């Protein structure tokens, strides 16, 4: 059996090792004693806020808000980390060095997404478990694994949108503001807190084209006893939306990189 081509090995190393190093660098500035609680307190606070809002208005059940907000909060690491991978490199003047290397761009940027997907997934799972315990939500044990799968697909999908934010970080300086705004749009539009069919028509029309919408819906149906096969189409749509955003993000990255070189703005901050 012959060894894999050298270029493939290099790409694999860039994907895995490069991704891990980039992720460590991304969060190295913050003590884990602060970082980890930030990821854990945030989603619980959001769940509590909206679950009590829902109770006050009597619109939907606690389960609706716990699942919606737990999965939606995966957007925090997915959006912020992806935009920071480009924005922070640009601010630290290391982006030019990275882009001047012969490293192929696809594994270079995809590698940065893998730890982010895992991060988003873990944050959402934590929020689901603790939020579920806080509000005593009854989910059949047979649904645990399928819900985890739905959460993973939603995290992937949201990271696809994160790629678009990362590309925009080549043009805008305030990446945190950008990620906050995108997060806010998802919060309103993806059905985390208002059933999509109760949204105004124009908002409901936008909703299916965004990450998380189908993933949240799938997780809710699974928690209500649906089988994995019943929500297969929702998960496929969720993955499709994520893949579409990922491709758009990669194309935008390529275009903005080319334009940054042409206009010599790669390191301006």
């Amino acid at each position, binding site marked *: 059996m012959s060894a894999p081509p050298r270029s493939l090995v290099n790409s694999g190393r860039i994907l895995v090792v490069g991704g891990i190093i980039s992720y460590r660098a991304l969060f190295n500035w913050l003590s884990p004693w602060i970082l980890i609680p930030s990821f854990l307190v*945030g989603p619980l606070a959001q769940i*509590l806020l909206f679950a009590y809002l829902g109770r006050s208005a009597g619109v939907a059940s606690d389960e609706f808000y716990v699942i919606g907000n737990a999965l939606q909060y995966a957007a925090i690491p997915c959006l912020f980390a992806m935009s920071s991978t480009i924005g922070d490199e640009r601010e630290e003047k290391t982006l030019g060095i990275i882009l001047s290397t012969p490293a192929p761009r696809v594994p270079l940027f995809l590698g940065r997404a893998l730890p982010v997907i895992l991060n988003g997934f873990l944050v959402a799972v934590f929020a689901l478990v603790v939020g579920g315990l806080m509000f005593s939500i009854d989910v059949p044990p047979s649904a645990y694994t399928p819900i985890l799968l739905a959460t993973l697909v939603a995290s992937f999908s949201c990271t696809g949108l994160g790629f678009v934010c990362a590309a925009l970080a080549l043009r805008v300086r305030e990446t945190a503001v950008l990620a*906050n705004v995108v997060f*806010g749009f998802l919060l309103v539009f993806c059905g985390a807190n*208002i059933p999509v069919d109760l949204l105004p028509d124009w908002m409901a029309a936008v909703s299916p084209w965004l990450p998380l919408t189908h993933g949240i819906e799938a997780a809710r149906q699974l928690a209500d006893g649906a089988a994995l096969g019943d929500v297969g189409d929702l998960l496929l749509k969720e993955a499709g939306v994520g893949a579409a955003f990922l491709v758009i993000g990669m194309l935008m990255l390529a275009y903005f990189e080319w334009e940054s070189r042409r206009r010599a703005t790669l390191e301006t901050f």
Partner: protein
Amino acid sequence: MSAAAVPRALAIGYWMHLKMLATSAFNGFLAIIWPLFFATIAFLVYGLTGDDRTLLYASIGASVMGVWSAVSTSGSATVQRERRQGTLELLVAAPVPIAWVLLPITTAMATVGLYSMAATLLWGWLLFGIDVTIAHPLQFAVSVPVTVLAIGMLGFLLSVTVVRYRTAWALGNAFELPVWLVSGFLVPISILPEWVRPISWVLAPTWGVRAIRESALGGQPLPDLLACLGLGVGYLLIGVVCAESVLRSARQNASLALS
């Protein structure tokens, strides 16, 4: 520093920070739009109930959310930014006590939150038809600045910890939503668990938003207003007393320059 120079230091610090904050279009945009996302959800959810009074309740509460957001997240981040840029040591070395340096920062932040307050009320009126008629305009005009000042004082207390602990700025983010919830901005405190209520009593925003609601809806805002003011003064006193000892600790641990 003479006592007569304190008001001048506070006024100049306040004005300077207000101008600095006003130069960042991105931050200004976020300060306005961020609470609008949450307000929109509250309006949509309460809109489904068909109860206009509930919508009005949410609209007034939502308008104060931006004031707290501006103070809790941006206020503590501003002190951290001074540390990163190496200017925190200069501020500490200045003859003006650190408390009088921090206080204008957080009150300027709270003032910026007024943009968000106006924007949220306008948003509710334009898109959701929530008509906020002010029953007691004079009391409303007093309640709003008192609430803003008291929230600024709470931010001041928070920012004192950032001087000592370089990671304490994250507390600002962590407290943003819990204070919205516990202070009853969107949800009546009566539906929260019993043990939460004492926490809400020691938070000035709780009384501030109640005073604003009472003055807008035609109730008696004075007791709430006095409670809000009293707590604000309390935060100020605690912050001033703690600031010097916190600063001494930061000097002993050489944490001023650590970013």
